[in-house]
């Protein structure tokens, strides 16, 4: 929070004996006119909050009212709410209305030379009138819009300043005066999801044997249920409890449905220490989403992952050599 220097544009007032007397009389009722110049202090910068932009193919907007209500048009997602801006005017004439106009603002990511910008296209002010001391606190909101040009927004902190001008009737000079100040704004873009692997998909300790014609398979459901099929002489024997994979999404938009797409391709699990050993094939990767696929009120969601492990076909029956067989699969998660 910064308090900035105020530019005061006042007409000069000729002071003679009569005017001086009047000024003294007026000052008895309104000391601020004599003792303080009008000042604008930014108490809290307007922050639109954390926003996700899953799609920038068309202009979307988020309006954050001065009462901190949020309205969204288009494909923006509010990840976490922001804070209304607040200003304090002091040293203004008592009981005068103040009209505010403001420049256009464009929020850009801090520290980046080129970034997509968020345009502040509107402000939300109540009618402003100074009190008997010539002061007033102003709470305001605003509207921010995406470019809608298809370019992706980089996650990060976006900020800008805009000049606000405060026009008021100055009875001391019998004319309007204007005070201006640079007001800062901010928003955080958080389109990317914070995803953590809590527990790897682990088929446990097994015995496995290939055959020429048959393939044994072992399936773990996302709930942890185990099923084994051993056609012919192919064999998988489970020697310890397997564990489904567990993935956590944290810090996402609350109460929001997420799209989760599991890898549809076969994944090889191989023994790096013995490359000539037969491999396993991981397929049919399935997921189970907590809270019916929606994030909770904290923006968190858990994804359980299961899959089917299948032995390879080999020309002669082979008992899989001891060791760890590993592979990786992809899961796509998005708003």
């Amino acid at each position, binding site marked *: 929070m910064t308090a900035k220097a105020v530019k005061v544009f006042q007409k000069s007032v000729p002071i003679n004996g009569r005017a001086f007397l009047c000024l003294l009389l007026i000052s008895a009722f309104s000391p601020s006119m004599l003792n303080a110049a009008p000042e604008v202090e930014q108490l809290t910068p307007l922050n639109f909050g954390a926003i996700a*932009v*899953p*799609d*920038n*193919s068309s202009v979307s907007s988020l*309006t954050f*009212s*001065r009462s901190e209500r949020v309205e969204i048009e288009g494909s923006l997602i509010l990840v976490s709410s922001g804070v209304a801006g607040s200003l304090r005017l002091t040293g203004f004439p008592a009981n005068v209305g103040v009209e505010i*106009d*403001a*420049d*256009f603002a*464009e929020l850009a990511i801090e520290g980046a030379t080129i970034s*997509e*910008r968020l*345009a502040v296209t*509107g*402000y*939300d*002010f109540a009618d402003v009138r100074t009190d008997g001391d010539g002061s007033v606190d102003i709470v305001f*909101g605003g509207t921010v819009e995406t470019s809608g*040009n*298809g370019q*992706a927004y980089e996650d990060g902190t976006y900020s800008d300043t*805009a*000049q606000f001008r405060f026009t008021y009737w100055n009875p001391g000079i019998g004319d309007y005066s204007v005070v201006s100040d640079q007001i800062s704004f901010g928003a955080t873009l958080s*389109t*990317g999801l914070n995803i953590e*692997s809590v527990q*790897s*998909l*682990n*088929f*446990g*300790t*097994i*015995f*496995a044997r290939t055959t020429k014609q048959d393939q044994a398979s072992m399936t773990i459901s996302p709930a942890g249920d185990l099923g084994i099929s051993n056609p012919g002489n192919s064999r998988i*024997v*489970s*020697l*310890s409890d397997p564990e489904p*994979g567990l*993935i956590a999404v944290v810090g996402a938009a609350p109460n929001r449905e997420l*799209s989760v797409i599991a890898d549809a391709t076969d994944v090889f*699990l191989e023994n790096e220490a013995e490359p000539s050993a037969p491999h*396993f094939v*991981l397929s049919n990767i399935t997921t189970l989403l907590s809270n019916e696929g929606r994030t909770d009120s904290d923006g968190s969601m858990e994804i359980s992952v299961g899959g089917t492990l299948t032995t390879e076909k080999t020309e002669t029956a082979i*008992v899989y*050599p*001891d*060791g*760890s*067989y590993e592979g*990786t*699969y*992809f*899961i*796509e998660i*998005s708003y």
Partner: protein
Amino acid sequence: MKNVKMINKIGGLGLAGVLALGASSAMAEEFGASANVSSALAITIVNDMNFGDLFASTASSAAGDSLTMAPDGGFTQGPVVGTNIKLLSLGGAVQPAQGTVATTNNFTLVLPPHVDTPNDPINNTAGVTELTIAGGDPAVAKLLVANFTVGQLVGAVEESTTVVTPTAAGSQSTGAIRSYTLNPEFSATEVTFNMGAEIYTDDGAGDGGARVEYEDGTYSGTFTVTAEF
């Protein structure tokens, strides 16, 4: 909401977005999957097989006499080949072999190849274990052990027995495998089993009938049993 008068500071939004790339929030994250293979299924030997004290008389080039020790340690006399009995149990420290396998899963005990008939000459045959006198004097007749069986199960039931029999009666089986698939009982974590076998007098055929006499002493040899899933 009151929109106050706006003055566009820079005259419009930037022109960077000429190419619409279809920005998306989709994130494809990579996760690990693994399986740990452990193919070893160890047999712990509790007791070695001991036929106890035996009477064994002169061997010959013909088929030998035999005794069968059941997995419970009981003996059955085999048919007498010729006129005089050549092999007889005298008691002593008779003990079937005993082993354990620690597992909760079905597994198979694979025994040495099965020899079909006691009338066959069996020495030098796959699946026959030769018991030789201590010191290994090659002139002393051997005792021949074959046709192992499994029984006296504790912690498991026998699910199936597989015996590959010779294709023709009287022929020697060279690849006939006897295997027992055992199914551990509920909550059992270890399976105990006994093994018996048939023991024959030496027919001497492998050495031209040179080994015909037995001497008092301890005769020993080894055989291999494997456990696999």
